[in-house]
């Protein structure tokens, strides 16, 4: 897909040798991030060194213990944080600030409480200068896609947590980003809703073909959703393990009876705990 110039990104300098067609939608190179905590005033070494490539249309899950800097990595890709060292580029454009080519879905939904569902979802197109009728049509398309048809005129406080997150996903998609970054989006909803949202997300991902980077601390969630699961170590975080999940998603839910997928989950659990030596498991294809 060709696009106009992005705000918040600039062309990568030629001497870095990244000219030509880009296989990677997202390229994270030598990222190191240190920040000063607002609460304690201490310097926190969040990310030691991370290199990561995400292909176009890929669904990648970032998995790690809490406080491991997986959300920080997502914020760095979004351009909401600037790395202490290293470089991130999205479709060959270096990330310097937030831009609409990198949409983000937050755990807290972050919907505007004074706008109804339609106006919330239409916000991205509105910011791009689209006329009302046109942007409402775009909004409707994505409201229907996330299954919120009939709730267009509801305000966020009138919706359940799961419905709010659907609205937030629709809002992010309506802005037509190239990559969708998701920061533990289903962590605040109940287990049953979470499972149906995961299935919906897979359907939406297949429909839209977007590149998705999904941060979670749930092994099961990562194993269900991802084409690949990137396991981060405790801070200062590094990529500890990259697991490619080959089991079809239709079979991943039945992990109780499916030994292959159970093996993946077991492998991820081991990867989360650095001290247990790991063995080769069927269905796991190691990288990194």
């Amino acid at each position: 897909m060709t696009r106009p110039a992005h705000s918040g990104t600039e062309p990568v300098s030629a001497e870095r040798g990244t000219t030509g067609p880009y296989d990677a939608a997202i390229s994270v190179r030598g990222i190191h991030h240190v920040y000063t905590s607002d609460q304690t005033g201490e310097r926190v070494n969040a990310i030691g060194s991370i290199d990561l490539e995400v292909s176009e249309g890929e669904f990648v899950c970032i998995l790690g213990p809490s406080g491991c800097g997986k959300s920080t990595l997502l914020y760095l890709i979004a351009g909401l944080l600037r790395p202490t060292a290293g470089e991130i580029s999205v479709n060959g454009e270096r990330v310097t600030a937030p831009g609409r080519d990198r949409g983000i879905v937050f755990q807290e939904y972050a919907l505007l409480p004074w706008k109804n569902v339609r106006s919330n979802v239409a916000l991205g197109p509105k910011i791009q200068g689209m006329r009302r009728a046109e942007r409402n049509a775009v909004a409707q398309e994505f409201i229907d896609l996330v299954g919120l048809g009939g709730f267009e005129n509801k305000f966020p406080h009138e919706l359940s947590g799961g419905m709010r997150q659907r609205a937030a996903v629709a809002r992010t998609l309506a802005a037509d980003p190239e990559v969708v970054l998701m920061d533990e989006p289903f962590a605040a909803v109940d287990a049953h809703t979470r499972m149906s949202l995961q299935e919906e997300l897979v359907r939406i991902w297949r429909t839209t073909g977007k590149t998705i980077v999904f941060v979670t601390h749930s092994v099961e969630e990562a194993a269900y959703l991802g084409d690949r699961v990137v396991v981060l170590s405790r801070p200062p975080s590094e990529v500890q393990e990259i697991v490619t999940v080959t089991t079809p998603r239709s079979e991943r839910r039945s992990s109780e009876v499916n030994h292959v997928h159970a093996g993946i989950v077991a492998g991820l659990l081991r990867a989360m705990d650095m001290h247990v030596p790991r063995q080769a498991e069927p269905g796991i294809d190691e990288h990194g």
Partner: protein
Amino acid sequence: MVELPARDHGASTGGAPTRAALAVLAPVRGTFKLLLPFAVLVGVWQIAATVSGYSSYLFPRPTDVAAAFWDLGRKGILPAYIADSMTVWLIGALSGAAVGIGLGFVLAFSRPLRALFLPAVRFFVAIAELAWLPLIILWFQFGFTAVLFMIWYTVLFPVLFNVLTGIEAVPNVTRQAVRTLGANRWQLVREVLFPGALPSVVTGFRIGAGYAFRALIIAEAFAAGSGVGFLIFESRETGLTERTMVGMIVFGLIWLVVDRLFLRPIEVATVERWGMTAARL
């Protein structure tokens, strides 16, 4: 408190027709409940004033006040004074709020300006507007401008501070979400910060306008030659105490009307409709 029989709440008593009849009468009963305490108050007042034997200069009876009300209305004094008071209050409150909102946004966006001016702003808030009165009279003389300045000054600071706290209360994640939709600085203000701060600003305006109403009485008493506040104080000096009471009652009624019919509905339309009563953004 007079307890009225509340049959409509009882599940065991009262047939369906009785309940329906009570439902029809509900607004009437509401009005009755509202007015009853005042009727009792006026009755007690009339009896006390009559029995006490004080002159109507010291303790005017409700009938004296009603007569003064009629007299002031008939001569056109009361309508003119109400118009004067409301004009200066409205202009002062609106211009004070406008400056407060503008200044609030400037300070909210500029850390250096905030560091420079906020301590001074806090200091000025600490000086009650009444303390300004001698200087205001010295600078602006008696009349419209002096009263206007008092109103303006009283409204300005509550609005300014509520703009600052309102913007601060917009969660960082909301700003970030809208920035990642591609919003520039101005779009962020228009789509997020201004509407996000609005409930707080409305509350600030309601508080400020209430303070200003009190300031109006004092300012008109000392620095004006007309208005309801002027009527209250001038009448005591001329021995027409019942006119003082007319002024008091008028102020009470006007504030109730303004607050119930204008300020409160605006607050409901923003704060409560958006479900933001518990600062859920």
